[in-house]
């Protein structure tokens, strides 16, 4: 394996890598380009215009921010996703710890049940959930959406954190227990700090789940305009009869680019922190 690669093979490898890169990032690059053009110019592009920012205007951003309430939508999404993440981690870490560390009756089939329940088609539980929220008065309110997201993400969060707790050697906690440490202390003082990478990744996914979710948000908060989350609002924009693609692109950049930055920033944790329901085997 250590011998030098032939120059031809080497060139080929680099070409493939570059093509793959273009394939991977072109949609993102394009939406950034598109956000800097006025809408009608998008439909008559030359070759250079498809790949390079040959012109740039802030018009679309100005329109989205000052005419359309993009910032309000983003604030809504940020609040919903943020509170979902906090609530989710708060509730699920302890459950994950218990499922990983404690022996109790029904632990195993409880986990099986959790995973199997998740295979229930999400789209079809929309109606009961919407009904339940209507009954308790959470329909068309942000807290209703937060409640639905939090409980919807719980199983994934629990499973993922449990998978990571499993990889932490139990010896540390056993040593602590010999020194008189209770389960609560060993959870808070030993397991939690060690599980930081998994918590970071789980938080990332819980947040992204809330930030990018469309179906539930569109059912629970279909109106008014100022309460919508950003994805629902932009979806509506992209399905108007004459779509203002420039405006949509500007909104899209504001939604996608922060996500990318956070994701790439945390990507070194991905492999270790994401156990994805036992993928690590």
């Amino acid at each position: 394996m250590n011998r030098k690669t032939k120059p031809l093979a080497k060139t080929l490898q680099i070409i493939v890598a570059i093509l793959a890169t273009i394939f991977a990032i072109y949609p993102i690059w394009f939406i950034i380009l598109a956000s800097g053009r006025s809408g009608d110019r998008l439909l008559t592009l030359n070759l250079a215009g498809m790949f390079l920012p040959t012109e740039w205007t802030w018009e679309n951003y100005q329109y989205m921010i000052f005419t359309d309430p993009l910032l309000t939508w983003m604030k809504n999404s940020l609040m919903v996703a943020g509170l979902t993440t906090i609530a989710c981690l708060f509730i699920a870490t302890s459950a994950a710890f218990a499922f990983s560390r404690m022996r109790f009756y029904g632990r195993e089939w409880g986990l099986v049940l959790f995973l199997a329940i998740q295979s229930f088609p999400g789209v079809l539980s929309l109606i009961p959930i919407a009904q339940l929220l209507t009954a308790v008065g959470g329909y068309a309110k942000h807290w209703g959406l937060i409640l639905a997201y939090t409980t919807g993400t719980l199983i994934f969060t629990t499973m993922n954190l449990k998978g990571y707790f499993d990889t932490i050697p139990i010896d540390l906690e056993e040593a602590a227990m010999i020194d008189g440490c209770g389960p609560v202390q060993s959870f808070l003082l030993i397991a939690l700090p060690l599980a930081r990478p998994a918590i970071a990744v789980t938080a990332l996914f819980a947040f992204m789940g809330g930030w990018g979710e469309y179906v539930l948000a569109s059912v629970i908060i279909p109106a008014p305009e100022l309460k919508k989350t950003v994805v629902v609002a932009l979806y509506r924009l992209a399905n108007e009869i004459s779509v203002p693609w420039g405006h949509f692109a500007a909104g899209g950049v504001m939604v996608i680019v922060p996500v990318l930055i956070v994701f790439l920033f945390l990507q070194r944790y991905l492999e270790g922190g994401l156990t994805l329901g036992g993928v690590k085997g």
Partner: protein
Amino acid sequence: MAQWKGWRKALTVLAFIGPTLIGVLIFNIYPILFNTYISFTNRNRYHPNPDCSITLTSILEPTCWKVFEENRPTGLAEPFRIQEPLFANYSDLLGEFFSAPMLLNFLKIIVCFVPLIIAGQVNKSFGKRIERPLPTWVVTLGGILLALGLGYLLRFDLAVNQIAGSGDFFIVTFRSLLYVALCIPLFFIVGLALALLLNIPDLPGRTFFRVILIVPWAASTVAVMIALVWKFFFQEVGTINQLLAIIGITGKAWLQEPALAFGVCVFVNVWMSYPFFMVTILGALQSIPSELYEAAEVDGASWWQRLFGITLPLLRPAVIPVIVLSSITTFQMFGTVWALTGGGPSRGAGAPGATELVMVFAYKQVFQTSAYGRMGAFAVIMFIFLFGLTLYSLRLSRITKGAYE
């Protein structure tokens, strides 16, 4: 943690898992129970409201509870009732499934897959021998040819068409299965190719490529937005057709032609999902000891032989769970397809559109036709199917085991 027992232990465990349990009970188990109940009623747009005098309704319908009485919907429409016969929604969906010709058709389809299974088994048993009587690819190719031959003889397409013609349920299920069958191998091939590329130690800019190639994964967390961008690309006046026009080809109406729209859905899904496979495979590749490759090289094994003899078999344990997991999520794909095509292009009034996968179909039925009762039955059937698949996949992973086992 075995030395503490009794009520103290019970209380501690409950304190740890209680909140999660309540959340799951209310927002996961309750919808399932409710859906199952609704699947036995005639709830639809003509009978939307609950009748709280029926015992089961008054228990499961939250607006029937005393506390939430003021939120109860009021309308002149008739309340929904339990179906007579009880399984009316189910038989409506499954149609003539249990009639003799349909079962025969199913049998034909299964028979067509038998050569592939046999080929797999033969390869497995050959793999245990020291000398292979036949190379792997010969057996696999033979299996595929035999399967195709059988398919031709038994009129595979006719059988599929007949089943698909017997109801929307089979059309959308088949289509979703086809979607999975097209997507998963592509995820794997693209993911494997890129993982192998990134695993080359002296690839210039390796770290850069590693980071940049997982961008679609990040983007897929806002799947609906990205799907809308792709929709713009594949429009009739979209970027793809502009690009084609520059090299002198007249583009197609990608999202208006059934087969092309389906292809676009597969393509976009591959774009979104390959990074997950890539990252998993890359992780597994790095755990393969390099001595194996060195030994193979000393024996004069070619690159392909090393790939099929060492890499792929050793990737198996890491990749199989990912494949099962991806199959389940791909089968239930909703947001991306919904944003791309909305289930269309239409194939006539009332019939499901060309890209109407199971969840798109369910969504349309619920929110556009208000067929709650029928879709309840649909959900239950899907759930049984997916539940079984999930239980099977659990056998492949250790997730339900504790840390001490």
